[in-house]
């Protein structure tokens, strides 16, 4: 039994090594020139956090790199930012799809924030040595004040400030920490003069229960991530945030210096194609259709036809 397993494992190993050599061959044209210093022969470690959407992004970047002839070692689902940040800093990870605003706040708690570009520049300034930022995608996965479509149409709401025109006080809903956040209900009153009726805790982090509460009218505004698949159904409107109450959280690959120009080009090409709608659509495929990250990434890359 053991011998049979070992045999199978060895066979698998041979196939895997063969595949690696074949892939390296695609890139260099000379499968034996592994020590020529060409980094295309090196293995790039791509990681993701334990967040399904982040894993899809990591899978997309991985597959794009593989298509470009690079070998990818996938180290996915490494917990939360607190856990993997030290790994990135130590150089154990070469490519990590990150979010500009959240990473900035993790590295620099007193960061000023601002527009998407300002946050990107700030982040470049505080990034540890040996790490670099590639181009940011248009897609972002950030906090937002979101209302139901009916409510938005009823009072003609477009941005956060327009909430002040709603005649009745507004019921706010979301995780309990929202009440005390800098962009929370008290700020809405102070900055825009919006009348707040109260705060209803719904502890599912902007998930289906929060969406249901918005649609039932139990609450009028809630904090829902802009890349949430709930937006795919078109019944929700994320209010514009021209004053940057929230930190913009654009998708951006954080890379080590093992990522050469060729790899950077590939990653930038992918990021350029990642629009806000694309990310919502990818997330919806995972949440609503229960597709695997692997399949979602392959399908999207084939459809986008980038390479």
């Amino acid at each position, binding site marked *: 039994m053991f011998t049979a397993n070992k045999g199978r494992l060895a066979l698998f190993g041979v196939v895997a090594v063969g595949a690696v050599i074949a892939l390296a061959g695609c890139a260099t044209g000379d499968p034996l020139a592994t020590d020529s210093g060409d980094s295309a022969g090196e293995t790039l470690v791509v990681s993701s956090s334990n967040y399904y959407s982040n894993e899809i992004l990591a899978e997309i970047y991985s597959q794009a790199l593989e298509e470009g002839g690079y070998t990818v070692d996938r180290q996915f689902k490494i917990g939360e930012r607190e856990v993997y940040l030290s790994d990135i800093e130590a150089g154990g990870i070469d490519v990590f799809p990150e979010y500009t605003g959240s990473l900035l706040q993790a590295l620099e708690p007193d960061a000023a924030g601002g527009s998407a570009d300002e946050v990107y520049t700030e982040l470049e300034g505080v990034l540890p040595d040996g790490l670099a930022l590639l181009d940011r995608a248009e897609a972002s996965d950030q906090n937002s004040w979101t209302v139901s479509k009916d409510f938005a149409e009823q009072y003609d709401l477009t941005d956060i400030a327009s909430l002040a025109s709603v005649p009745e006080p507004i019921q706010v*809903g979301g*995780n*309990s*920490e929202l009440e*005390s956040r800098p962009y929370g209900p008290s700020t809405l009153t102070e900055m825009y003069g919006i009348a707040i009726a*109260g*705060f*209803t*805790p*719904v*502890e*599912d982090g902007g998930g*289906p*229960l929060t969406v*249901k*509460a918005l649609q*039932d009218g*139990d*609450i009028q505004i809630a904090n829902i991530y802009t890349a949430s698949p709930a937006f795919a159904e078109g019944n929700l409107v994320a209010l514009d945030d021209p004053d940057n109450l929230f930190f913009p959280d654009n998708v951006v690959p954080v890379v080590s210096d093992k990522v050469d120009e060729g790899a950077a080009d590939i990653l930038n090409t992918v990021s350029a194609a990642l629009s806000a709608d694309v990310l919502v659509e990818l997330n919806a495929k995972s949440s609503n259709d229960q597709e695997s990250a692997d399949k979602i990434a392959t399908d999207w890359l084939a459809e986008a036809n980038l390479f």
Partner: protein
Amino acid sequence: MNLLIESIQWILDPQNYVGGNAIPLRVLEHLGFTVATLLIASAVAIPAGFFIGHTGRGRGLAVSISGAFRAIPTLGLLTLVALSIGIGLGAPYVALTILAIPPILAGAYTGFEAIDRRTIDAARAVGMSEGQIVRGVELPLGLPLLIGGIRSAALQVISTATLAAYLADFGLGRYLFTGLKTRDYAEMLGGSILVILLALALEGIFATIQRFVVPRGVVSSRSRVVRVR
């Protein structure tokens, strides 16, 4: 240890005794919710349990249903119910009632089943009607086990009632969620301590009730047997 002292300070802090988030208010909400849930669950489970215990019919069904009920994860059920009826206290009531039914049901029918068959036959032989047997013989003799069932349901409900705060501004669970999400661990632990104290107090009350509902005849006959030995 430091955290424990901080959380006790949090419980004693006069600031936490005013306003809409005051400790006494949260304790009352929590207790009210627990009592209401137990009443609803009892209204369903006790008559069903008495019927099963008295007639012996439907026992297999009751055992399997209550076994299945016990296996349902309460948070999952809560979410599922809330997705159909919306946020607020409705979903927590449904979820926790389902949590409370199995132990009460089991207490009700095992209380009846544990009675010596000869006692019931004797009651029937002296001409008591079925209704009289239930009220005069089975109910008092089965009461300690029934109270035991309600006691274990109460313990589960009072600790799980913290989940009511998942969907509403309600109960002691509020402190747990707020403390966890804002990393105010003194508040979180303080809230937990309050839940534990409530649970212990309720346990004490039920233990006392359970002792007093044992019919006098049962106690004295038991003690006489002990003495003879």
